[in-house]
């Protein structure tokens, strides 16, 4: 890779002592031994237990609700209904510290009159024990009258469709216009059109939503909870009508988020119940609550029309994207923006026309989920690439190579990508790693597929994202980091500790980090959008670099040399050319302290700030930067039963610089698993808006028996905008997996399932419909496979 290693030579020349090493994550031992306290492990004296009453219907009018029997039950402290709440709404937008005006996304806290989705909360209960809360839940009487609803995007757009939220059912729309598509299609030798569909899926984190709230002696509502976003404290304060400094959110290690703990979940109910009872309240969702209680991944319908020359050069692309946003807006407009920007994939296309729209229905609301719309876009554009290759008779990998964006190219919105674009390198490496093709006998067929992608890391640049971190050196030379970042299991805080350790010349074990406390740790923003390492990592790097400079200056003075002769490593400040001339960090810190040296630094990192893109053309910068990579798989398909087995699964990604390669592998392996479930087995089924598969007996995540060994290949261009040239890998590792599997299945059976998940039944169906199926028919005794 050396001849291609671009751009940031300054970092590339630094000797790295901590960064890039597969160190045992600082959070590993506590989790492995069970000593880590998650939010659900906290209790308090005289703590109450909360419970949420939810609607059984998706579209209805609440005619009356009578909680008197529940309130009279001994041990019930309060039952809150909309009548007890002030007439306020809860914001569902991206939280920020920027003061940017936001889209109107508010929702009712409890149902006042109209029920818009299955599971919408009707009442909140606090009681002495969970059993009493449960009993009270059953004692609340209410009457609801079903109303006509809309349950799919086509009917939601119909002329007489009921309106879910005023003024109409289109809750977000984006356009991208580049070049001239008519001209592009005129230049094409072939025009290929296809429509792809994806399904609702569930985050299925290990730890359902949970929290504990109490009001302290200053009247501050404290909420200890499992969340990706401690900065919802502002929305909570607004919803309660208290000043922002009267709500504090404390995190804990999070048992998985994937976007499902990005919106407000239990904290609003906890705050209301603690405020009403003035006692500590714990609220733990059951798995069923969790299935009903947070937003899902948007189902998408994506149509591609691609013009291409005989040589395989794409001349024009028209994409139409529609997604089901469910009953409340939440982050849908942003998700649809991501999908529009991502829609052309990592390809250089001169003439582009993209339209995306989020459509309201009475299904469960949809919001953030790893990949955030860009993942659904990839399901479509990578399947389309294989379909184009098949239609024009070009090798599918070669087709990609002929169209890949290369380093220095612009995106469809006219943004020049500052970092390396190594799609080709990643694809080549991933394909190599698949090795020899597995042999199989009829009726089993083997297929291979790849998917490449372009996935942003960091937030939309007109949200003006910032992150803060504080780094300090104790008098004994140990290091403390404070930052509001939440750790959702990806090794976020361990990576930050590693960065501080690198800069300050100590070991990972010498760093302790305090994190996720909205009142005490400097605010670092959300752990979402593959931004935690990029943003907070840069903030920690900045703070520790300043501190490093200060310590080196001080040491140079002590050692009687110039600062540029001094390095900081292994707990010492030493003269580079004469390492015997050194002072330990312990002595240095102690001496510094006695002379009033400031041994701490608070730093803010600011992402690039831009203006919003042009509304009509979508032109302008949208994200700080992008990650590129490839996932490749080999599958076997039983062409009689339709069963798909993933035999090999390889993720190759240019992540800029691995801070901790072990943690990166963890992300890629997790992405491979989650993407495989998305491709093959996971689906939330709503009937008339009602979730009919609210349990893990129907919602099928891949098990260890379904997963092959996953190979991970980490490429490091050191060209990213993160610390030490890092890019991001949290979302990117997921994005290409499902399309790679879909392409491999299509390769195996010679025809395509255009709709995820690719269940055995759908495979059998497309096989029986496909023209090429003569011999199979014969083998099966000449009876049709499936009667329709």
């Amino acid at each position: 890779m050396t001849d291609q290693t671009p751009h940031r030579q300054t970092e590339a020349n630094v000797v790295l002592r901590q960064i890039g090493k597969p160190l045992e994550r600082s959070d590993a031992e506590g989790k492995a031994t069970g000593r880590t306290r998650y939010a659900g492990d906290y209790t308090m004296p005289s703590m109450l237990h909360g419970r949420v009453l939810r609607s059984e219907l998706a579209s209805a009018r609440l005619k009356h609700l009578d909680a008197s029997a529940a309130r009279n039950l001994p041990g019930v402290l309060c039952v809150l209904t909309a009548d007890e709440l002030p007439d306020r709404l809860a914001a569902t937008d991206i939280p920020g510290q920027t003061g940017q005006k936001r889209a109107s996304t508010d929702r009712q806290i409890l149902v006042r009159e109209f029920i818009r989705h299955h599971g919408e909360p009707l009442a909140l209960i606090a009681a002495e024990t969970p059993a009493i809360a449960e009993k009270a839940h059953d004692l609340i009487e209410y009457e609801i009258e079903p109303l006509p609803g809309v349950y799919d995007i086509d009917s939601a757009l119909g002329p007489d469709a009921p309106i879910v939220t005023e003024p109409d059912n289109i809750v977000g729309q984006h356009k991208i216009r580049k070049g001239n598509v008519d001209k592009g299609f005129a230049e094409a030798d072939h025009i290929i059109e296809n429509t792809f569909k994806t399904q609702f899926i569930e985050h299925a984190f290990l730890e359902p939503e949970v929290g504990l709230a109490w009001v302290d002696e200053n009247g501050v509502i404290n909420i200890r909870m499992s969340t990706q976003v401690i900065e919802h404290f502002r929305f909570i304060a607004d919803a309660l009508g208290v000043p922002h400094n009267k709500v504090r959110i404390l995190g804990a290690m999070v048992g998985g988020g994937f976007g499902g703990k990005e919106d407000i979940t239990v904290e609003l109910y906890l705050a209301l119940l603690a405020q009403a009872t003035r006692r500590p309240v714990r609220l733990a969702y059951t798995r069923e609550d969790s299935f009903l209680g947070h937003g899902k991944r948007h189902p998408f319908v994506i149509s591609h029309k691609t013009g291409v020359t005989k040589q395989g050069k794409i001349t024009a692309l028209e994409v139409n994207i529609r997604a089901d946003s469910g009953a409340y807006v939440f982050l849908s407009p942003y998700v649809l923006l991501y999908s529009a920007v991502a829609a052309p994939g990592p390809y250089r296309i001169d003439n582009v026309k993209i339209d995306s729209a989020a459509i309201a229905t009475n299904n469960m609301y949809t919001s953030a989920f790893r990949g955030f719309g860009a993942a659904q876009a990839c399901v479509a554009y990578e399947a389309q690439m294989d379909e184009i290759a098949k239609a024009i008779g070009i090798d599918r990998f070669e087709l990609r190579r002929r169209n890949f964006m290369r380093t220095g190219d612009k995106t469809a919105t006219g943004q020049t990508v500052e970092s390396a674009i190594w799609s080709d390198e990643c694809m080549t490496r991933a394909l190599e790693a698949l090795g020899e093709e597995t042999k199989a006998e009829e009726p089993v067929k083997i297929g291979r597929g790849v998917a490449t992608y372009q996935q942003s890391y960091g937030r939309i640049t007109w949200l003006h994202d910032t992150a803060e971190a504080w780094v300090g050196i104790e008098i004994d030379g140990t290091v403390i980091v404070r930052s509001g970042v939440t750790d959702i299991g990806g090794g976020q805080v361990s990576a930050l500790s590693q960065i501080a350790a690198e800069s300050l010349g100590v070991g990972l074990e010498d760093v302790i980090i305090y994190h996720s406390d909205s009142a005490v740790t400097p605010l670092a923003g959300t752990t979402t959008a593959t931004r935690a390492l990029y943003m907070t990592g840069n903030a920690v790097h900045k703070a520790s670099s300043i501190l490093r400079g200060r310590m080196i200056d001080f040491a140079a003075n002590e050692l009687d040399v110039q600062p540029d002769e001094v390095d900081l490593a292994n707990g010492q400040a030493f003269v580079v050319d004469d390492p015997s001339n050194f002072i330990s960090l312990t002595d240095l810190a102690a001496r510094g302290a006695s002379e009033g040296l400031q041994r701490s630094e608070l730093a803010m990192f600011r992402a690039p700030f831009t203006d919003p893109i042009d509304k009509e053309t979508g032109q302008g910068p949208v994200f700080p930067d992008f990650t590129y990579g490839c996932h490749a798989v080999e599958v076997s398909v039983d062409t009689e039963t339709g069963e798909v087995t993933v035999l090999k699964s390889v993720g190759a990604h240019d992540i800029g610089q691995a801070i901790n390669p072990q943690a990166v592998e963890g992300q890629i392996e997790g992405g491979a698993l989650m993407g495989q479930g998305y491709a093959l087995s996971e689906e939330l089924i709503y009937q008339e808006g009602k979730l009919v598969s609210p349990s893990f007996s129907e919602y099928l995540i891949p098990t260890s028996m379904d997963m092959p060994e996953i190979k991970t290949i980490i490429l490091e261009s050191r060209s990213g905008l993160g610390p030490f040239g890092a890019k991001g890998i949290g979302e990117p590792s997921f994005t290409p997996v499902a399309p790679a599997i879909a392409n491999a299945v299509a390769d195996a059976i010679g025809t395509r399932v255009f709709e995820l998940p690719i269940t055995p039944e759908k495979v059998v169906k497309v096989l029986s419909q496909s023209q090429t199926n003569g011999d199979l028919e014969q083998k099966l005794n000449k009876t049709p496979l499936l009667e329709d």
Partner: protein
Amino acid sequence: MLSEFDLEMPSDLQASLSSLPYATPLGGGTNLLVDLRARREKSKRLVWLGNIQAFREIKINAQQVSIGGGTTLSDILHSPAMAEAAPSLFNAARVFGGQMVRNRATVAGNICSGSPAADTVPPLLSLDATICLTNAEGCRSVPLDQFYTGFKTNLRRQDELITGLSWLVPNSNTANLFYKLARRKGDAISVVGVAVTVTREGDRCTHARIALGSVGPTVFRAKDAEAILAGGLLSEKLINDAAQKAMEQSKPIDDLRASANYRRHSVRVLTRRLITQAWHSLPEKTAHT
């Protein structure tokens, strides 16, 4: 949330039988506790069978296998001779639930749950297993094939326990296979389960069993399909006819996991496949011992 109930934990069989008329037997609880939590089951009194002495005993000799009423799926997998003595059951155990469930779940509980998707039942039917139903008075033997009377209904009386199961060890001319078709390889509810037994003498099939799961109100034997094979000179055509017949005897429903059509299709594919595979695994020349 679980409602309140009394739990008895007797250590001998007689004690458990004496409280049975008023209580619900609790094996591994992997069905019962789920049902209690979902409030489908309202029992206020449970008798746990896990303390009963020797209730998990597995005995295998050259002719016969017998297992106790408390035998778990893990016990089946850990019994060294079981792979030979009941290949289909052993294979069903391997794809049954996950490790934790296998450690708790009992074969008797699986039978009594009455689910058409119960994975041990097609294998046990294909092996002509007999169950032993015991009450305070004594024990009666019932062929498993006669046990079910309809969807989740069976011959067990309120005061009876399944205390054991037995079947004959398949001889060396007999093959016994099981396949579970599901939407996921591990820990999934069967879409279709097929178990077959085939005995071969030269070119002739002298004995056949085809048991089907998840394609009717109970697990059942496709007896008309078996009849096509038994006594016949086995050919591809005969196998196809039997597979076709098994499909016709299936009465599946559409549900979240699969359509009835796909299930019927799969019954035919899997029946044909398993019988073909079983047949070819057997020696052409009959071994006389």
